[in-house]
């Protein structure tokens, strides 16, 4: 199903003929999810925060991570 173009404001691209566009419909929801997760860098973040979270939360870090995921 084709979609209407995203809302745009007049800018430099629209002033001088049709501008080149980003490739529409190039990736699916799974790939998009992976890009989002990659931005958070799971393994690197665990490497950085594991010890400090264990020390700061006195081993209650697992619950804090779950609450943060839901409550923010």
């Amino acid at each position, binding site marked *: 199903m084709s979609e209407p173009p995203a809302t745009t404001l007049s800018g430099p*691209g629209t002033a001088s003929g049709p501008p080149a566009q*980003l490739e529409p419909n190039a990736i*699916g*929801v799974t790939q998009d999810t992976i890009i*989002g997760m990659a*931005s958070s860098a799971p393994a690197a973040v665990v490497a950085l925060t594991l010890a400090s979270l264990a020390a700061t939360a006195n081993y209650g870090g697992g619950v804090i991570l779950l609450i943060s995921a*839901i409550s923010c």
Partner: protein
Amino acid sequence: MLIIANAYRRLNMWSANAGASFEWVGRAINPYLGFLTGWLMIVGFIVGTLSGVVVLGPSVLAVAGSSATSTWPNVGIATAVGLVMLVIAVVGIRITARVQVVMALVEYLILVGMSIWGLVYVLGHHAGSYPVTSGWFSPSGIGGQGSIVGGFLLAVFAYSGWDGGVYVNEEVRERRTNPGRAVLIAVALLAVIYTLAQVGLQGVISPKNLANSGAPLISIAAALGGAGWSKVMALSIALSVVATTGAGIVVGARIIFGMARYRALPAVLGTVNRRFATPAAASILFGLLVVALAWVYLLATSVQNTFNDVVDITGLVFALFYVLTGLAAIVYYRRRIFSSPWDAVVLGAAPIGSAAFLVWMVVKYLMTAPASQVWSMIGIIVSGLVMMAVSRFWLKSPFFGVQRESDPGRAARTAENTAI
């Protein structure tokens, strides 16, 4: 994060643009605040990407069995990874996505596998491990002696970046709905991975060894399976950083592109390469900036403390633009808030509560943060104000003249449909 992620989902249904929060805040609340939001996003993703690139070298060198402290090998690795991921980002979103999926599969397989292994190891009461107690399932920790505020701050830092999937919205199939789903799924999966890793790995070695280890994950992997598995874990960390470098360039470039399209940044950055259909100019700027800053960081040790101060407050920068996005969702959908109890919770109470919670954490952190970090935060905001003045008065961006918009609400939509 799920509540703020839902705000992203709702706003993306209204307007699926690469600028995302920059536009949403600008068009729902105020364009000047929108610009500042965009600036915080750019800074957050540049610093977040940079912080990964500069720690990549030691992980790669550990896998190769070389000295992790050699300067030039670290510079070479940071440069090579930055440039390779830049080329991939320029060549196309499809190849970027394929590379990301392959790296993610290997990274998550190792991390999740080791976490389950660690949990079994701890539950088996192996020598040297730290036993699971009821305190592990309390936010205040064992004996109620943990810092809940400190823990939440670290958790917010850990989740930062989940929103990356929304900035490629113009390239996603069903772009008004799928990016919103993607951020919700990303937060949920990250919650599972982070919780499993924390619970599964924190007890593998003693608290003393955990606190004293320079590379805790490597030490834990070595305790579980010896030197070979520590290299496997180092590979997972390296892949994670390479992936976040690539994602950072892709995402950061689209934020810049989304802003430059309205001349809020130089117009050349708002162009799309006709051959590759990617924002090549914005990608090159972002990628080269990350590589150049990595060189400065690794070679000029005198500036490392300043960099570290900025890196330490990256989570706060993300928290601030999450707050602004949550507020944009409330303001844009304000006419719906009182239309049903469900909307009152999802579009009103929950985002307000989340935004208030994040603001409280930012304030709480800054009240006890070193002066250098507070000044770094002030510096980021002041530089944003300077860029805003340049955009408004020099680039004469039309973005600052946009009219405020809001959802007409269910009643208005129903009346409109009835009239038709």
